């Protein structure tokens, strides 16, 4: 504790000292923890936000959402859609070592094939990735995959240094990796913050515009709001709806509502009575006034959902009629089935009290007997995956605009996640999911995804609730920062205005 020996300094010195900390560091407070820096290890939100800053991908998206060259200067797709050839630009890792086709092949093969790769779903079609020469990479597919180019942009398609991983081993790498992205790790304090410094060897000349960034983990929403209001950070993630107006009203802070792929849904368990019966699920959906719920929860900032897919995705069916709000009809169904008074166990994950209250009240109004059972996140997953629940509510998002991964995750019963563990299983939906991936014609794909949405909405695979915009707050000290729907901060294009 020798650090406690302080001279007779005064508070003014403290103020000066803290004011002097590098003004060109962008600090972002997010509730999502960074738990690993290895892009294949995790698909949890906080890590996704970090991976984007550390690893460049072959392609990138511009503000309009269009794919642009990144590490790959150009690319070509064979006519059968089975071979993708990328020409790499001369790029370096943060230590100055060259980034070669070997590294690209290694990284992509790793995320696709490594047994510990947390989320290889996007790369199921890949048979192998081959470094043809020093700056040419070839992706060889077993079957055509429509969104494969999109997948070259997502968080876990980042390029890591083969030499680094081989030399130090995956665990050491995961704690302090060489970086190919706009920033490199200056210091990682697990459970607190990730301190990033601009990568001088980043391929994009002149970027990033700031000297560094800090991704600070702050789980308490009020604390985050206080922090941006007090000017202690430049941006915060997920301001509670209740505070958006207040925070937005503050000088120097704005809360633009940014489009996201986030969708809130009710998850019924399709293998357990009473929700194994589509009519009962329909009753549960009709009992809910989704407009009112969305309005109450988001104070009018979110839009009620009509489809089982997020509205930001391609092929989203905007004109689809969701289940109507009709409590009388819902009650009639329950009465007809003799299910009035059925007890249903609703798992209540953390921070969902308001939603759970609204759901319970409306379900109970049509004749269910809803018992909310609070669970923490760990328990929630256990119960969900184990099918030990009647119904619950949650949210999910998709990392690309292409609906393939979304359908696989939330609607497909045979794609590994059992339709978000609701055990909804319609062979037609499964079949359509696989076919849509392989289909290269956008129009045909659109029709398939429309059918998927129609089926799942009518069978109530899940009850879509609302589409939530991001409510991130930004200080006016910076500009150019936003969070893309794929959960990537545009930090490299961010700069200080004063």
């Amino acid at each position: 504790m020798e650090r406690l020996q302080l001279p007779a300094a005064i508070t003014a010195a403290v103020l000066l000292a803290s004011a002097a900390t590098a003004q060109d560091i962008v600090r972002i407070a997010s509730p999502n923890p960074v738990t690993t820096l290895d892009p294949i290890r995790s698909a949890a939100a906080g890590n996704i936000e970090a991976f984007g800053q550390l690893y460049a991908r072959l392609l990138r998206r511009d503000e309009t959402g269009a794919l642009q060259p990144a590490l790959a200067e150009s690319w070509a797709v064979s006519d059968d859609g089975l071979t993708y050839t990328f020409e790499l630009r001369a790029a370096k890792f943060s230590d100055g070592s060259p980034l070669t086709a070997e590294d690209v092949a290694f990284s992509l093969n790793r995320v696709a094939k490594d047994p510990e790769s947390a989320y290889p779903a996007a790369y199921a079609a890949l048979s192998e990735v081959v470094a043809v020469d020093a700056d040419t990479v070839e992706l060889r597919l077993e079957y055509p995959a429509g969104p494969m180019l999109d997948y070259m942009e997502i968080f876990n398609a980042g390029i890591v240094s083969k030499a680094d991983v081989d030399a130090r081993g995956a665990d050491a790498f995961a704690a302090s990796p060489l970086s190919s992205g706009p920033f490199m790790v200056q210091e990682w304090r697990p459970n607190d913050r990730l301190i990033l410094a601009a990568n001088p060897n980043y391929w994009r000349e002149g970027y990033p515009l700031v000297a560094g960034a800090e991704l600070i983990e702050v789980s308490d929403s009020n604390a985050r709001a206080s922090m941006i209001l007090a000017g202690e950070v430049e941006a915060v993630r997920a301001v509670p709806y209740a505070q958006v107006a207040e925070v937005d009203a503050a000088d120097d802070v704005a809360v633009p509502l940014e489009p996201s792929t986030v969708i809130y849904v009710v998850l019924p368990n399709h293998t357990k009575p009473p929700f194994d019966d589509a009519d009962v699920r329909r009753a549960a959906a009709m009992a809910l006034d989704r407009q009112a719920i969305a309005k109450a929860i988001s104070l009018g900032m979110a839009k009620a959902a009509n489809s089982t897919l997020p509205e930001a995705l391609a092929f989203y069916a905007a004109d689809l009629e969701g289940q109507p709000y009709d409590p009388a009809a819902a009650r009639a169904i329950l009465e007809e089935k003799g299910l009035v008074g059925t007890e249903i166990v609703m798992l209540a994950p953390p921070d969902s009290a308001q939603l759970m209250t609204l759901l319970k009240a409306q379900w109970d109004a049509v004749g269910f007997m809803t018992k909310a059972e609070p669970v923490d996140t760990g328990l929630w997953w256990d119960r969900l995956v184990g099918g030990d629940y009647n119904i619950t509510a949650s949210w999910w998002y998709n990392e690309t605009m292409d609906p393939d991964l979304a359908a696989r995750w939330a609607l497909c019963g045979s794609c590994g996640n059992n339709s978000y563990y609701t055990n909804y299983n319609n062979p037609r939906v499964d079949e359509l999911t696989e076919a849509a991936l392989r289909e290269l014609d956008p129009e045909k794909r659109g029709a398939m995804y429309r059918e998927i949405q129609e089926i799942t909405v009518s069978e109530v695979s899940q009850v879509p609730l609302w589409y939530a915009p991001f409510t991130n707050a930004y200080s006016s000290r910076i500009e150019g920062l936003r969070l893309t729907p794929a959960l990537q901060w545009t930090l490299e294009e961010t700069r200080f205005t004063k």
Partner: protein
Amino acid sequence: MRRAPALLVAGIAIVAAWGLVALAAPFLATHDPIAINFEALLQPPGDANYFGTDNTGRDVFSRVVYGTRYALYIGLLGVLAPMAIGMTIGLVAGYFGGWVDALAMRLVDVAVPFPFFVLVLAIVAVLGPGIENYFIALALVGWIGYARLARAEALVLRQSEFVLAARTMGFSHPYILARHVLPNALSPVVVYMMTDITLVILFGAALGFLGMGAPPPTPEWGIMIAEGSFYISTAWWIAFFPGLAMVMIGVGFALIGDGLARWLRLRA
């Protein structure tokens, strides 16, 4: 010196008043405490809703009124098991001394360094959230304070002549413990219990704050405060009134504790 009973009376009056509120909740409440109302979200206090409404349109006043039941339930039930366990261990340890005492003290040694909140969280993680599991966690660590007090009293009492006399009259140890030691060791324990009730209610609220308390839509003050904390600058009434209620009930119990302590000291 005269003021001591006054404090005690004030404390008892406050707690009794809350007790009445809890009992008469159905008559006092103006609304159904769990009925949502999409037409009346976040209404400020007024004639329709004395304390305003919350983010699901529920009447805060009615929820505060019904919440009294949970506060008292948590507070009273939450100290019961720790007190029973602690008194038993403490009295037995202090009265018998020797290896019994040594064993009990080792037990205390293990329980004391266990960070209380961590244990509560861990137990809640094992058994799932909810008030009942909070009680279990309390029972596992909350007894220490009672055990220490009871043991200290028993150590003195075992040497006091009326206990020695009871022993030389050939009475059995359990009888002596129950009839002679327990009643005379009770007063500091009761004083401590009053403070403990306040803390148990508060910790229960903190648990609600961390999302591990009673299930929604239970009108429990801690959860109401936690929920309302997001609205602290836009709809202050959601968190303020349950917070105020919690302070007032806490003051009541604390006054009883203080007053009782002084009153007992005066009588001694």
